[in-house]
């Protein structure tokens, strides 16, 4: 078999039928281009959703679960298999969401491997009053430098600043939507009441927006000591510890480790955002199915055209065989045509796919105030392009192989007889 010669013959055949070649090529081009756009866009959406979920939530959260179901004293003292104890309307025990030894834990965890940052919080439900308006929400007492390291708070600020929390002990940074509802701006005063009855008047020093409704609607930040003060607790009172890892995937195991080591409750981001992870899976399947469909359609296009090509070239095949070309030569002549079509169409598809993806990535997209999205989310990864080209070439080889096989099996005598 002489590949160079087969290639020359294949090339001559393709150039002799330019229009047909172009049509076959464009089939592949379309398939690959759509594949690239689909996968770049879908993965972009996945990444965006995951990022926005991960950005605003901890990889691991440590908290103390307040459990109102406790065994009655009767059950604890006199339980037996033969009798049933009935206790009506048992009152829950007074229980605090306090994390025991929280500050020590923060210092220990901070030194652990794979931990990017740890931030202690005191959180509480709160009612915000501005004149006659009263709105419920939540208040998080934070250690600004630590919390900023985890959530990049400075980039979320709309007006004012988070830094002011350090200098102004009675300062508060309010979520954008909450501020709108309360009709407050930086410099205004808000009165905050806790369910336990504590009350403080705080001054708005900043307004932030995460682009996530559930946060911007209800949350406000103030310093840890302010929340401790309003709750009437001591300086070691902590309710939450937020942890970010260098790799989010590490969080799942890390949570388990902490649970065992400290005997505390933890929640990882995967559990907290199951809907997003499920959505990602569904989108991945969808991308896969649509991409395969596109490639199969392109493959059928090539198959048809190559089949037609072989039928149109029966005489040529007979001559080649009569003059001494073997079946492997004939296969390579036609398979090479398919491969040339596949590679050229594929590369063109990658270029067009990149072009469309790029255009999409700079197209303004109005997602409303809630989402921090200005253009369509698109990911550019060499991997996708390699994948597209590989799939494209494999499809063309498969689609070209069967017609080529058929060409090689042609009996020259039947054709030359006329």
């Amino acid at each position, binding site marked *: 078999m002489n590949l160079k010669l087969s290639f020359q013959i294949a090339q001559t055949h393709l150039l002799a039928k330019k229009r047909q070649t172009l049509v076959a090529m464009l089939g592949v081009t379309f398939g690959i281009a759509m594949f690239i756009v689909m996968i770049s866009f879908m993965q972009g959406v996945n990444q965006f959703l995951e990022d926005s979920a991960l950005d605003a939530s901890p990889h691991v959260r440590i908290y103390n679960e307040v459990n109102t179901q406790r065994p009655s004293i009767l059950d604890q003292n006199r339980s037996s298999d033969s009798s049933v104890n009935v206790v009506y309307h048992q009152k829950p025990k007074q229980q605090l969401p306090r994390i025991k030894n929280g500050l020590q834990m923060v210092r220990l965890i901070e030194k652990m491997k794979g931990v990017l940052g740890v931030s202690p919080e005191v959180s509480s439900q709160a009612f915000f009053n501005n004149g006659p308006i009263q709105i419920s929400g939540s208040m998080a007492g934070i250690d600004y430098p630590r919390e900023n390291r985890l959530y990049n708070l400075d980039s979320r600020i709309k007006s004012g600043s988070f830094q002011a929390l350090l200098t102004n002990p009675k300062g508060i940074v309010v979520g954008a939507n909450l501020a709108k509802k309360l009709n407050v701006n930086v410099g205004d005063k808000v009165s905050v009441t806790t369910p336990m009855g504590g009350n403080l008047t705080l001054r708005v020093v900043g307004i932030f927006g995460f682009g996530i409704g559930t946060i911007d609607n209800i949350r406000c930040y103030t310093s840890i000591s302010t929340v401790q003060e309003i709750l009437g607790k001591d300086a070691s009172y902590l309710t939450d510890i937020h942890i970010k890892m260098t790799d989010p995937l590490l969080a799942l195991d890390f949570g388990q480790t902490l649970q065992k080591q400290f005997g505390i409750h933890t929640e990882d981001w995967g559990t907290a955002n199951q809907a997003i992870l499920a959505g990602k899976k569904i989108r991945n399947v969808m991308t896969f199915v649509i991409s395969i469909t596109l490639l199969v359609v392109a493959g059928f296009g090539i198959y048809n055209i190559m089949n037609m090509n072989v039928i149109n070239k029966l005489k040529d095949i007979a*001559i080649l*065989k009569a*003059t001494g070309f*073997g079946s492997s030569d004939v296969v390579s002549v036609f398979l090479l045509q398919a491969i040339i079509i596949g590679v050229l169409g594929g590369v063109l598809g990658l270029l067009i796919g990149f072009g469309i993806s790029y255009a999409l990535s700079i197209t303004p997209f109005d997602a409303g105030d809630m989402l921090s999205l200005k253009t369509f989310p698109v990911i550019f990864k060499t991997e996708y392009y390699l994948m597209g080209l590989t799939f494209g070439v494999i499809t063309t080889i498969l689609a070209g192989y069967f017609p080529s096989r058929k060409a090689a099996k042609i009996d020259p005598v039947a054709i030359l007889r006329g």
Partner: protein
Amino acid sequence: MNVLSASHINKYFFEPEKFQVLQDVNFEVKKGEFLSIIGKSGCGKSTLLYILSTMDTDYEGTLEVNGQRLTGLPQDTLAAFRNEHLGFVFQFHFLLPEFTVLQNVMLPALKLGKYSNKEIEERAYEKLRLVNMVEHTRKQSSKLSGGQQQRVAIARALINDPTIIMGDEPTGNLDKANSGLVFDIFRQISHENGQTIITVTHDPDFANGSDRIIEMSDGRIIRH
């Protein structure tokens, strides 16, 4: 010296019904001989020639060329054998239409790969000069007249200096002048180069000019 020998060749067609086309065909051809096969239309000449050409392998009996038994060899081995030792000229001149005259002539030699591309091109020019087609080398083969195409086909058949050149009515579609040209070329290569020619022909002048005539009737050889 025998360059080809066919012994006890039987061939059947099964479509539309079983029918014996060739019945116990035996003959030998000597080196450098210019042989014509004649006979009425439908008597099995083409069928015999395709068996001799090794392209048809579905027959009984044995075929030897150049002292090598070819019966029963696999297709690809036979293809390689044809490439090196056999040349063909068909009635309908069968060139590859997308290729130039020069490319058509060069292809079997490129396949053989015995010479460099440059040498092959020189040889192709030499063969095209022999058939008087040098001035058309760069033309696309589909743009030539019938007689010209047939001469290019002869040049292609000669490119690898085959032992035997076979023709199935090579002048069947040509006018008197072109037929004469083809005859002269065949005569020249058999007598000067010692290459063997086996052609099926309907043209009595052509047959009478050759060294030997085999006449067939209803699948048998009736005259050597």
